[in-house]
């Protein structure tokens, strides 16, 4: 218990929390945009892999770090466009198409990595984002600019969703595409846009791993973070503010288990600590499930002229 208390006053602990939370914030906001528009995007896991790889590759090939982030967003958006083509333009199962995209993006990234770097033993490194030591805010100053971007995105997305005509249409189309169609707004475009934008954010989430958290690309580096974002969105009731809180809460437990694992000194098997975040995600889902106000049209393909 003492260890836990000492954690809370340790600023390096909070630095870790925010660092772990960053990709989850990007990813959860991405899923949120897709699902608000009525589209489940299980492609997130693969899109994050692709974002991590492309972001890293771009920087490794000599572009700047922000160039890498942009490239990751672009590739994420491209994969999002494919998903939108499959499940919005064509009424395919959102579950299966998403898993297909994850498999496609993951295997293609690994394939490309092996084609470009056939015989490397240790993964090539890049110069990653550095901390924002110029920032006079304690914990945040020890983060990279991507974390700042993630945090700023939360109010930005909130504003778009709740204060603009586009956000209004977006919230409507995930609930009742018929309401949107009756106003002469193209449902396919209105849904595709957020899927592409959300997927771009997932790409950025992946790029954080190679451009800020680590400085190289390796296999299995995403390791289920995408799936956790899908769970976090339910926990957040599809609201940007709560998504931020959810991501921070998850990161808090993840950072705490890392510390406790070190402090515990092998008292408990380390696997139990590693399980904790996944178990907590499931518990969180159970807690909110009964009240969860799913967007009513989520996972329902829309074919014009049918009800």
């Amino acid at each position: 218990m003492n260890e836990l208390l000492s954690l809370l006053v340790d600023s390096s602990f909070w630095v870790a929390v925010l660092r772990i939370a960053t990709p989850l914030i990007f990813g959860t906001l991405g899923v949120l945009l897709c699902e608000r528009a009525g589209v489940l995007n299980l492609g997130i896991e693969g899109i994050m892999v692709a974002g991590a790889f492309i972001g890293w590759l771009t920087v490794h090939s000599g572009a700047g770090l922000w160039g890498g982030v942009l490239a990751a967003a672009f590739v994420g958006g491209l994969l999002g466009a494919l998903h939108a083509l499959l499940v919005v333009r064509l009424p395919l199962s959102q579950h299966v198409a998403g898993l297909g995209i994850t498999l496609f993006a993951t295997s293609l990234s690994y394939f490309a990595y092996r084609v470009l770097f056939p015989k490397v033993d240790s993964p090539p490194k890049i110069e990653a984002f550095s901390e924002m030591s110029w920032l006079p805010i304690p914990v945040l100053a020890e983060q990279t600019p991507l974390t700042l971007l993630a945090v700023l995105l939360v109010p930005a997305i909130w504003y778009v969703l709740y204060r603009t005509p586009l956000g209004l249409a977006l919230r409507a189309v995930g609930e009742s595409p018929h309401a949107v169609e009756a106003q002469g707004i193209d449902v396919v475009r209105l849904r595709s846009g957020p899927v592409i934008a959300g997927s771009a954010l997932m790409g950025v989430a992946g790029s954080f791993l190679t451009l800020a958290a680590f400085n190289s690309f390796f296999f299995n580096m995403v390791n289920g973070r995408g799936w956790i974002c899908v769970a976090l969105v339910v926990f957040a009731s599809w609201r940007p503010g709560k998504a931020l809180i959810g991501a921070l809460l998850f990161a808090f437990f993840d950072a705490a288990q890392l510390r406790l694992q070190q402090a515990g000194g092998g008292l408990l098997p380390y696997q139990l600590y590693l399980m904790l975040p996944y178990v907590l995600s499931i518990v969180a889902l159970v807690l909110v499930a009964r009240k969860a106000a799913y967007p009513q049209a989520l996972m329902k393909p829309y074919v014009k002229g049918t009800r």
Partner: protein
Amino acid sequence: MTVLSINNISKRFDDLIANDDVSLTLAKGEVLALLGENGAGKSTLMNILFGHYVADSGSISVFGETLPPGDTRAAIARGVGMVHQHFTLADNLSVIDNVMLGTESILRPFASRAAAAERLQALAERFGLQIDQNALVRFLSVGEKQRVEILKALYRGAKILILDEPTSVLTPQEVAQLFATLKQLVAEGLSIVFISHKLDEVLAIAHRIAVLRAGKLVFEGGTKDATKAALARAMIGRDVEALPSVVTSVQPERIDQPVLALESVSAHADDARLKLDGVSLDVRVGEIVAIAGVSGNGQSLLADVVFGVAHVEQGRVLLRGKALPLRARAMIVHGVARIPEDRQHVGSVSDLSVWENAILPRVNDARFSEWGVINSRASRAHASALVKSFDVRLASIEQPIRALSGGNIQKLILGRELSEAPTLIIAAQPTWGLDVGAVSFIHSQLRNATARGTAVLLISEDLDEVFALADRIAVMSKGRLSQARAASEWTMESIGLAMAGEVDARSREHRAA
């Protein structure tokens, strides 16, 4: 002055001719009723006007300008507004959000909510359509939702208002209120197309009437020159057959014990906003008891309860005096015939074949399966027999049932349930959306069943149907059920008040007196 002219519109879907060279005009300040059976092409025509469909040929002009086909926004911009039968509101948004949806350029960086609220308020006051702007649409009654839809159209500057079956969800009083609103709109210079299949309403509100049958315009004329009989003939294409008369003289002797008795049944719907509050009712041998009410007042929950698919919190249900576990399985085993409101999504599994649907509720019956293996020959034979005796039109019993029309699906469900010689039939909205032929077939089947001594519980929002069939009527409002009284004791006015929830006060007075 002609505000709208529809010129030689034709539209076909695969083999179905939905509109066949239809031409119509609408004058300023006029109410034009578009009359026709379900499937006659009324909705298709209006959807073409509104840009949801593109016509194969023909054109539409509004205020003298030709509308670009398939362009809903152009239609809205030229002053066409539509109130769909199935409301097009997003439940998760407030009234004002729903009204604003699509009115501002989607790329604008901010929404002018204050100005919009002011304008909406002004409109609401001008036309007497009061509504709480900040209420979530989810919590509105059906009548209120319709008001929002009308306001939505007016907010967009509609000069031509199309209302698709607007009265089907309203109480008689609400219908009267709607008609008053429509008259005021017309007086302000709007023009209205009123789509309906109810003759009395059409005669009451319309200046001019057009009748569509099988996609063709078969009648057009002033209301003065129209009679109910002539309109009915035009709609159906032949004289309306008198319903097969029921042998009322040989009413089976009524035994005191009711077939079905509900004793203060309470239940909650999934979303917890709707509940049944101590509902009591009995249905006796050989009678039809109808439950009337406005959609959304708990009838579908009551139907789910008596169908055995909703959870009952309190109270009990007795079948022939014995407590009946309210589970679908138990009801089927005890010989309760169940005909649900939604034939496509509840009454049948659309991806399964016709014969699989025909046996689905009784698949574990020794007739249809042994040791868990389906006897497909017997099952198919049973399905074929049903298809024959209930006149289900289909190509093959191997077809998925979704390939059948609504009327034919309903006939199959009816046959599936009635062929089991039930002691009780529970039917929810059994004729909703069917054409006249199918309606009269189903009505006569229900009546014939009562002549054989079967008890019928009919849950219907269609007052014409309720009065046509019921021996006794109870009214549901806000989850409570009034006492069942003989049909002759009800008037349109009293039933309308009861539907609006004013029955308690009255019946209390009644009892006090």
